[in-house]
């Protein structure tokens, strides 16, 4: 191995690292901030909060988003809540406990210092959001209310109805809007990042495609921040929005940024099951439902058969014939086990033939018991909007019949490798939010994504980026006519021309669907060596098919939605392959990555800390060549690494 | 000036002028009811509202109220049509909770004002204006076209005679009834909408105001209509 990865973790005790870092980092004085430009790609929780905070500090920020408004970013769809170690409920919560739960939930594959910092700033996030006017749920006394989420034994989740992500994003969006008004942030909407421009080894600009005019545009800056979310849509069907894509991250990867732990993909247990081949996306039902809903399948196989055939209904099966398998297997956490555990348990039951809908790929989430215990009104108050949404989609009333749920791709823990400062292996390129890999290890706990996005954007990056920019104050603004910009734009243009020239007979979506099927079947919830090898072979075939058979109507100028999709799918194919490579190399089961060869007799994940306690970072080697893997060892100094136990 | 330069300001002008006109209508209907009870009483009111300085000032203020309300209505409508854009929807299907009146306030207003001109000729041109001009009597025949009755000159203070003459004509009565219906629709929306625009509304009062508006509009319009019909029957 030629490269040594320096994660730049500050010295000192865990609890003092961040304080020490801030005390000793380099800063940029206000007069110089005005002379420094920062590009922020993405306007989700991480992007918008970063752009707003950097703007407030006095930097000149260029902020890009793919939709018509920053407020559309998919952070908006997060339902359940955001964690913070406030201990307002007096149930024994603390920064250390949030840190510990996150590390444990991540199956001991996250970096301690990063996670501790995350837990530390979590409280500031709540304060900040309340000050912005985020209408969190409150108690009658006027204080903030909390609920509990999977993987925790305390109630530390703050929420705003079932629309927490929306409210937090609108908070960040309003802070961003304020800066746009002040002129510190320039907003560029309906623009998609196409390439990263590197000058003398440092990220200095981007090429974007204006989605309305189809023109390529160049933007230069002293630093580039990508906050472009995850790559879950590689699987075609996921809970991600239609325009979520991994392209910006893949472009950075191609330009030399390492991609870390791509195989850690979160499969969320409570999604509405698939209903047909025309389906465009899967809808998530908030994890908060597991607070009061009980998950079950029939005990008897003949009951399951009858449910699948439609001859029996859920309510025909008496309590004693119901298998509350999460409560049975994990008595201590019951229905509130972490997502990876709950998902696998559902798959295990369905694989054994106990699935409860016509496809056999669903389990029940039953509120009958909660309604008996609390009354329908209380249940309606807590989950009313979620129930309504479920009924709209499925045409079934969850107050009367149990909901049906099944796991679906939801979040990607893997992402661009970053050091403690959130800087990638390319100098001057930073990655924040879901698109980096840093805080969730192999599995993310519920209500932690919002926390991480805002932590990165409000409280971490605005500090750490100064440590980089302090050296850049004498660097003048860059001309967009430099050969590096020319070259990058030419590359993009060539790629678009190549795609437009294929003129085959397959639609972009049909190829994407096939890629998704391969990913779900072989690189999904249960992975095997043979399956992954097969997947790599098949993805290669898909790539060939894509570049020879895809058909894109219309022109490359003007708005062309098929061309947009095609450019993304081309990157999804590369991304899918990378996920498969990583999953193949990681011969252990941990968090969202489950290799069927590596499990205990009870079917629990079997981790291999002796051989795999590291971050797998993938380095791009050019078209056609397999990527090279570089390791960042995870030295646990403060937490004792154990087997995750949610049973007792 | 924010009352003309801002969208809410313009609406405030509409509301206040509208509420002022509602107040006027309230007095007017009370006065009309007097005519049902006592001819002398009604004429006393008429004399009171003759060419006296205070009545003239009142008339001018009232005219200004009308004028502002109408000018602003056209102004707002023009702006709103422009804001709607050049292309119109092919299919339009209004939600049930949207009152018909609320979407047709201008049309209703034009009907109201059109017939009001007719009304002004009957009861203002012939009464207060003639009094200002110094005429003591007018021929009430002009008020009762087609009525098969012998009509003579009446004193400009004899409002009762004017009412009797005017509503002896069934065509005029029908026209007035159409007017009151249009007014009813205009008031049902106008009343609560004015309060809403002034910010005097919330989730609880929302339906209350609507009910009050309906009740109020019904009382006023019924009051007017009763007088008109009663005098028609008296004339038979």
């Amino acid at each position: 191995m030629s490269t040594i990865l320096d994660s730049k973790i500050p010295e000192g005790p865990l609890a003092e690292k961040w304080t020490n870092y801030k005390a000793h980092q380099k800063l940029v004085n206000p007069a110089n901030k005005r002379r420094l430009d920062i590009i922020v790609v993405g306007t989700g929780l991480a992007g918008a909060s970063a752009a707003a905070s950097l703007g407030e500090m006095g930097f000149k920020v260029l902020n890009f988003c793919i939709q018509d408004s920053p407020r559309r970013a998919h952070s908006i769809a997060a339902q359940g809540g955001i964690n913070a170690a406030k201990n307002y409920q007096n149930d024994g919560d603390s920064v250390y406990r949030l840190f510990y739960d996150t590390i444990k939930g991540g199956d001991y594959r996250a970096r301690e210092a990063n996670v501790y910092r995350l837990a530390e700033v979590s409280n500031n996030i709540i304060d900040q959001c309340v000050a912005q006017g985020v209408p969190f749920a409150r108690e009658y006394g006027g204080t903030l209310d909390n609920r509990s989420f999977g993987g925790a034994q305390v109630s530390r989740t703050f929420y705003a109805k079932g629309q927490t992500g929306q409210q937090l994003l609108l908070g960040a969006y309003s802070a961003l809007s304020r800066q746009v008004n002040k002129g510190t942030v320039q907003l560029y909407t309906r623009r998609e990042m196409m390439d990263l421009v590197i000058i003398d080894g440092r990220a200095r600009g981007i090429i974007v495609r204006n989605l309305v005019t189809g023109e390529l545009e160049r933007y230069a800056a002293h630093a580039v921040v990508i906050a472009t979310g995850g790559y879950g849509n590689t699987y075609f069907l996921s809970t991600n929005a239609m325009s979520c894509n991994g392209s910006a991250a893949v472009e950075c990867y191609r330009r030399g940024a390492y991609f870390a732990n791509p195989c850690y993909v979160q499969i969320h247990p409570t999604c509405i099951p698939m209903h047909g081949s025309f389906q465009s996306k899967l809808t998530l039902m908030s994890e908060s439902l597991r607070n009061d809903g009980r998950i079950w399948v029939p005990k008897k196989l003949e009951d399951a058969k009858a449910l699948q055939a439609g001859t029996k209904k859920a309510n025909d099966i008496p309590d004693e014939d119901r298998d509350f398998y999460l409560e049975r297997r994990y008595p201590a956490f019951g229905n509130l086990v972490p997502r990876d555990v709950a998902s696998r348990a559902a798959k295990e039951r369905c694989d054994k033939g106990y699935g409860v809908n016509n496809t056999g790929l669903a389990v029940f989430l039953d509120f009958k018991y909660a309604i008996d215990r609390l009354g329908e009104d209380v249940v309606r108050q807590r989950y009313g909007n979620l129930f309504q949404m479920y009924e709209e989609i499925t045409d079934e009333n969850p107050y009367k019949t149990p909901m049906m749920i099944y796991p679906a791709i939801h979040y990607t823990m893997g992402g661009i490798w970053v050091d403690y400062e959130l800087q990638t292996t390319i100098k001057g390129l930073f990655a924040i939010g879901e698109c980096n890999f840093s805080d969730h290890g192999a599995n993310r706990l519920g209500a932690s994504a919002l926390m991480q996005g805002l932590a990165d954007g409000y409280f971490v990056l605005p500090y750490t980026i100064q440590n980089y920019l302090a050296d850049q104050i004498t660097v003048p603004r860059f001309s967009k006519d430099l050969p590096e910009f020319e070259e990058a734009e030419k590359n993009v243009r060539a790629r678009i021309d190549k795609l437009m020239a294929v003129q085959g007979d397959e639609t972009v979506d049909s190829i994407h669907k096939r890629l998704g099927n391969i990913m779900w079947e072989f690189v999904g919830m249960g992975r095997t060596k043979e399956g992954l090898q097969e997947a790599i072979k098949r993805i290669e075939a898909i790539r060939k098919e894509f570049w020879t058979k895809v058909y894109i109507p219309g022109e490359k100028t003007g708005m062309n939605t098929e061309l947009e999709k095609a450019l993304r799918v081309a990157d999804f194919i590369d991304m899918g392959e990378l996920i498969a490579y990583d999953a193949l190399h990681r011969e252990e089961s941990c968090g969202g990555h489950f290799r069927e060869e590596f499990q205990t007799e009870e079917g629990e994940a079997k981790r291999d800390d002796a051989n795999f306690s590291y971050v797998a970072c993938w380095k791009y080697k050019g078209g056609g060549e397999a990527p090279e893997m570089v390791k960042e060892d995870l030295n646990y100094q403060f937490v004792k690494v154990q087997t995750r136990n949610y049973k007792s | 000036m924010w009352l003309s330069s801002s969208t809410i300001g313009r609406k405030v002008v509409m509301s206040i002028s509208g509420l002022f006109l509602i107040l006027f209508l309230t007095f007017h209907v009370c006065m009309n009811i007097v005519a049902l009870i006592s001819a002398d009483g009604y004429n006393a009111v008429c004399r009171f509202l003759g060419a006296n300085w205070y009545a003239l000032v009142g008339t001018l203020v009232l005219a200004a109220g009308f004028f502002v309300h109408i000018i602003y209505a056209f102004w707002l409508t023009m702006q709103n049509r422009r804001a709607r854009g050049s292309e119109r929807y092919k299919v339009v299907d209004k939600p049930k909770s949207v009152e018909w009146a609320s979407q047709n306030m201008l049309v209703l207003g034009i009907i109201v004002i059109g017939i009001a001109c007719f009304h002004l000729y009957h009861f203002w041109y012939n009464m207060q204006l003639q009094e200002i001009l110094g005429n003591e009597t007018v021929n009430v025949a002009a008020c009762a076209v087609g009525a098969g009755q012998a009509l003579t000159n009446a004193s400009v203070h004899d409002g009762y005679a004017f009412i009797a003459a005017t509503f002896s004509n069934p065509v005029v009565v029908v026209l007035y009834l159409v007017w009151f219906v249009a007014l009813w629709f205009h008031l049902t929306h106008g009343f609560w909408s004015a309060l809403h625009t002034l910010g005097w509304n919330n989730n609880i009062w929302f339906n209350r105001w609507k009910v009050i508006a309906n009740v109020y509009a019904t009382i006023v319009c019924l009051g007017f209509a009763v007088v008109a019909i009663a005098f028609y029957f008296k004339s038979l």
Partner: protein
Amino acid sequence: MEKTINFTLRVWRQKDAHSKGYFEDHQMEGISGDTSFLEMLDILNERLVKEHKEPIVFDHDCREGICGMCSLYVNGHPHGPEGGCTTCQLFMRKFEDGSTITVEPWRSAGFPVIKDLMVDRSAYDKIMQAGGYVSVNTGAAQDANAILIPKKVADEAMDAASCIGCGACVAACKNGSAMLFVAAKVSQLALLPQGKVEAARRAKAMVAKMEELGFGNCTNTGACAAECPKCVSLSNIARLNREFIKAKLAD
């Protein structure tokens, strides 16, 4: 078996902002009732691309009713006749077999058409930029529980804040007025103590910007609230009026 339906889809096509638009008819057959309206358009687009025609362009993203991106005027209603939901949460089981379904873009001077059914709603961003925020810098906040807010107030603010910025209110309004959108934001922040400090400035700035961008005057028809996919209440407009008038009188 689940219901499948056949129908005629009459859809607005327009090459770009400056071109003249027209309606185009498509026969749709065997569409399952569980298909969402947007998935139905996906099916049609897939067919169009296979026939080497340009697909119908429409805005869409999260497809779970929260991003506010989808914006179709279906059978005379923004987001379709169902009410209380966005176009992406509208399912084909709600339509009659054999019917004609007419799909148009939002039509309003404030939202010019970009292509086909896609419109430009950047005006909403500009209104927000004019004052739709609490002026607090990152890191300047006090402890979250230091401000006590009665549950009722917080809930009311939350109801106002549930606006998704889709523009259905403008699309539904015969006056092309954006009052409900502005009112929702002004209400949310005027209700909460954090936002009260600059409530007057906010109301004035947002209303002025709305007007500058060519939106119409509110005549309280209530179509906006009736068509709002998130059921944002009309009483927010009264609150906005109150805030605005108070601010102007104080000047």
